């Protein structure tokens, strides 16, 4: 596709439920990023992949958060035992090699009730 695609667009989860958020980056983009954006705030870095290698996961808030990109294209962000504070928009972005400006998807809005 022409842009970064994220699914689902909206997700409502009961507290304690596990969720999986999907990101389809732009074809051929080597770098992939996940960000968390709370309401009225700027995006905050979660994790970064270069191809299938997870090079930085310093932003993951707890061990309930896990991300993977097994074949170097599609990525999944998994949140186990969701809590209310996990409610946010989860943004995925991708970029080609050596390009600092990346393209964001429209995000997945997660609401934990």
């Amino acid at each position, binding site marked *: 596709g022409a842009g*970064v695609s994220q699914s689902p667009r909206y997700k409502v989860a009961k507290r304690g439920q596990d969720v999986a958020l999907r990101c389809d980056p732009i074809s051929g983009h080597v*770098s992939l*990023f996940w*960000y968390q954006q709370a309401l*009225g*705030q*700027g*995006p*905050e*870095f979660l994790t*970064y992949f270069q191809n299938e290698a997870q090079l*930085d996961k310093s*932003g993951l808030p707890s061990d309930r958060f896990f991300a993977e990109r097994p074949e170097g294209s599609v990525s999944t962000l998994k949140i186990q035992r969701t809590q209310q504070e996990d409610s946010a928009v989860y*943004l995925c*972005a991708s*970029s080609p090699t*050596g390009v*600092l*400006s*990346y*393209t*964001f*998807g*429209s*995000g997945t809005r997660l609401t934990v009730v």
Partner: protein
Amino acid sequence: QQQVKQSPQSLIVQKGGISIINCAYENTAFDYFPWYQQFPGKGPALLIAIRPDVSEKKEGRFTISFNKSAKQFSLHIMDSQPGDSATYFCAASMGKRNEKLTFGTGTRLTIIP
């Protein structure tokens, strides 16, 4: 620790006027400073970016001014239009050393007729 501080939180400008948003950073290792524009329900989109070896960069109606010694940079939108109404985020990264972006808290800009 908020490494990029952004002001004002909200801004109302008359059509045709100049919109000015300011950011300050703390980490002197930052060497790439983009501005992103975000519309409701969409991901951030790159507007313009600057490296610290120049003091100003202009693209159409958008200009970044950069003051390395003061660790400050600003976005100027000339001839502001109603279509510019959006939330604007400044950001910073360490470039190729570490591509993750640290975002400011955002400025909600409203352009009134």
